[in-house]
C-alpha cells in the first residue's frame, strides 16, 4: 500500500487520473478549484492519459462532457455551488441521454449572499435530475468512490455525482491509500458502454418525442437507477477483492442498546463517529447513497436495532419544508410498523457540527411545536 497525504480534492483528482479518462473539461469555483488544478498538473506532466480542456463555464464543461461521452469517451468534470446550479439544464440532459458522466460536486452554499461554507443545498437541488448521488465522508472514500462511480455509471448508463463537503473534506489532508494505476485501471475496466455518435450510422439522437414515449424512457431510467442499489454491493465486493476496502449504501455503527441514532451524510459522519463514545446510548447511520435512495436498507437497520429516536443532521434546508435528508427519511419510514420519531438538526448555510451541539440536541425533547426542527445556531 502506498499512502499519500492528500486533501479530498487531490484524492478526487488522483482517482480521475487512475480511472483512464479520455477527457476532462474544467472550470474553477471555490472550493472545487484544487481538483481541476491538480488535473491540469497531471496534464502538464503528461500524466493525465487523456484530453484536458479549460472551458468558459460550468455549463460548457458539462455540455462538452455530454458530447464527448456521446461519442464514446470516458469523461470527468467537477464543480460546486453556483457552478452546479448553472449546469442544471445539462444535468437533466445527460441523464435523459443516458451518457455515463462522472462529476464531483464539492458542497458549498448558493447565494445570495455569497457564502463559501459547505451547505448541501447545491447537490440536493439536483436530486430529481436522474443522476446517482453518493456522499463521501473523507478523502479515502472520495478516491474510492470516484473509481466506483465509473463502473456504476457505465454499467447503468446513468451519470453519477460524487459529493463531499467543501473545506472539511476538500481542503483537509489525510493519509490516502493510492493504489498503482495498473490496478485501478483493471478495476474500472474497459468501457462498458457503446458510443452513440458513430460516423456512418445515421441515427437521430435525443430529438423530439411524445409524452407517451417519454414516460417509458423515464420509467426505464428509474428502473435502471434502482439497480444501482444491488450493483453498488457487487461493485464493492469486487473493490474489496482489489483493494481490501469496501462501502455500503447505508453504513452504521449502532452499539447494542442504542435508543437514538444520528443519520448523516458527508463529513458530519466523521464528527459524530468521533463523538460517539461520549454520547449515551447513541448510534450512527451514514447515508452514503442518496440516489437511488436506499429506503429498504435504512428501515432494515433501524428495525434491527429497535431505534426510538432518529436525529438527522441536515446541512441544508428546503425552505418552507425543512431538512431534505430528514424529509426523505420520513417518507421512507412510512411503511415501518413502529417508526422512530425523526428530528432534524439543521446546519443550513454550512455551519460546523460541534460535539457540544450533539449533546445539546440529545438533551432536548421532541415534544412541543416545531420541536422536531432544531437549528444549529440555537443549540451550539
Amino acid at each position, binding site marked *: 500500500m502506498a499512502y499519500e497525504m492528500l486533501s479530498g480534492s487531490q484524492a478526487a483528482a488522483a482517482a480521475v487520473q487512475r480511472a483512464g479518462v*479520455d*477527457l476532462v*473539461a474544467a472550470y474553477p469555483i471555490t472550493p472545487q478549484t484544487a481538483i481541476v488544478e491538480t488535473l491540469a498538473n497531471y496534464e502538464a506532466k503528461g500524466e493525465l492519459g*487523456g*484530453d484536458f*480542456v479549460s*472551458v*468558459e*463555464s460550468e*455549463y*460548457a*464543461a458539462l*455540455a*462538452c*462532457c*455530454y*458530447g*464527448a*461521452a*456521446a*461519442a*464514446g*469517451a470516458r*469523461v470527468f468534470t467537477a464543480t460546486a455551488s453556483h457552478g452546479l446550479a448553472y449546469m442544471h*439544464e*445539462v444535468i437533466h*440532459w445527460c441523464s435523459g441521454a443516458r451518457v455515463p458522466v462522472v462529476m464531483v460536486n464539492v458542497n458549498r452554499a448558493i447565494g445570495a449572499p455569497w457564502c463559501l461554507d459547505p451547505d448541501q443545498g447545491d447537490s440536493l437541488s439536483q436530486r430529481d435530475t436522474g443522476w446517482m448521488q453518493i456522499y463521501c465522508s473523507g478523502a479515502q472514500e472520495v478516491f474510492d468512490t470516484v473509481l466506483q462511480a465509473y463502473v456504476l455509471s457505465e454499467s447503468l448508463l446513468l451519470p453519477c455525482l460524487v459529493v463531499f463537503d467543501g473545506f472539511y473534506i476538500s481542503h483537509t489532508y489525510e493519509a490516502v491509500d493510492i493504489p498503482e494505476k495498473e490496478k485501478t485501471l483493471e478495476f474500472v475496466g474497459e468501457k462498458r458502454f457503446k*458510443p*452513440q*455518435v*458513430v*460516423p*456512418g*450510422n*445515421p*441515427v*437521430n*439522437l*435525443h*430529438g*423530439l*418525442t*411524445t409524452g407517451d414515449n417519454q414516460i417509458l424512457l423515464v420509467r426505464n431510467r428509474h428502473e435502471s437507477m434502482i439497480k444501482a442499489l444491488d450493483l453498488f454491493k457487487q461493485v464493492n465486493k469486487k473493490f474489496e477483492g482489489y483493494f481490501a476496502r469496501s462501502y455500503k449504501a447505508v453504513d452504521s455503527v449502532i452499539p447494542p442498546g442504542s435508543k437514538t441514532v444520528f443519520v448523516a451524510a458527508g463529513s458530519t459522519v466523521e464528527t459524530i463517529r468521533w463523538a460517539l463514545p461520549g454520547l449515551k446510548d447513541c448510534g450512527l447511520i451514514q447515508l452514503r447513497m442518496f440516489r437511488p435512495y436506499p429506503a429498504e436498507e435504512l428501515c432494515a437497520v433501524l428495525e434491527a436495532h429497535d431505534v426510538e429516536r432518529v436525529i438527522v443532521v441536515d446541512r441544508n434546508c428546503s425552505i418552507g419544508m425543512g431538512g431534505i435528508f430528514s424529509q426523505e427519511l420520513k417518507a421512507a419510514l412510512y411503511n415501518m410498523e413502529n417508526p422512530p420519531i425523526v428530528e432534524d438538526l439543521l446546519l443550513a448555510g454550512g455551519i460546523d457540527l460541534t460535539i457540544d451541539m450533539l449533546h445539546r440536541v440529545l438533551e432536548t425533547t421532541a415534544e412541543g411545536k416545531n420541536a422536531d426542527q432544531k437549528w444549529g445556531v440555537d443549540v451550539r
Partner: protein
Amino acid sequence: MRIDELKIDSEMLYSGHNACPGCGAALAVRYLTKALGPNLAIVLTASCWSIISGMPPLTALKCPILHCPFPSAGSVGSGVKRGLNAAGHDDTTVVVLAGDGGTFDIGLQAMSGAAQRNEDYIFVCYDNEAYMNTGMQTSSATPFGARTATAPYPLFKAGQKKDIMQIMAAHGIPYAATATVAFPDDMESKLKKAQAIKGFRFIHILSPCPPGWGTESSDTIHLSRLAVSTGFFPLYEIENGVTWKMTHYQGEKKTPLKEYLSAQRRFKQMDRQRMEMLQHEVDHEWDCLMEKVATSPSE
C-alpha cells in the same frame, strides 16, 4: 446553376423531412450535407431544425445527429469532436448546426468559447432572422424595422441586426464565410474550403423562411438573391480574421433595398423614413466591407 448540376456527391437529406414548403433552412442543410458528407456528425441545437430532422427513430439526414440543449451547441461540438478523436475517428467532419437564436443570442457564449479555443469543427448558423421554432419572435439577428411576434404592430424591431461576422472575425478564427441558398455553388466552395481547414470555422447562411418572413414558398430563392444584390447580405469570406474577400461581387450598382423589403410581409408597415434608415445602414455596412476587402493583407 441547378442543384442537380452540382458536382457534389450525394443527397443526404431525405425527402419527407418536416420543414415548411420553401424552407431556406432545409435547403441550406441539404446543400451543406451534400458538400461535406458522407463522413459527417451533426450536433443540432433547439431550433426549427429540431423539428425538421424528424421524430426519432425517424431521421431526415444520412448521418448521425446529436441533439443538445439550446445554449450548449458550441460546447457539445467541442466534446463530440474530441470524443470522436479519442475513438479514432479523427477524419469525421463535425458540424454544429444552430439557428440565429442558437448562435447570436443564447448560444453566443458557448460558440465564443469554442472559437477562442479554436476547436476543430464547423459551426453553421442558418439565419432566418428570428426564433421561428417558437413562432417568429425577435432575435438579435432580426433586421431593423421587422415585425415579429414580440414586436407586433405598431412595434417593430428597434435595434440593428447584430454583426456576427465581425464578432467571429475578431476571434481570429481560421475561416468564416457568409452564404445563402440562392448561390449553392458559392456555398459549396466555401464549405469545401472550410472542410479542408483545421480549427474553428464559421459559416453564416441566410435562410429565408416563408411563414416567418411573410412570403410565398416559391419566393425563397428570389429573396435570397435579392438579399445579396441589394447588399443586405453580401457574400464574402474572412481568413484568420484579417483577410476579407468578396466571393460574389456584382459591382457597385446595388438593387434598391426597398425591393427586398416590400416583398416581405414582416416589413409591411415599415414607413419610408425607416426604410431609408435601413438603406443608409446597409450602404454604410457595404462601404465598411469594401474598405476591409480593399485593405486586407494579401496571402
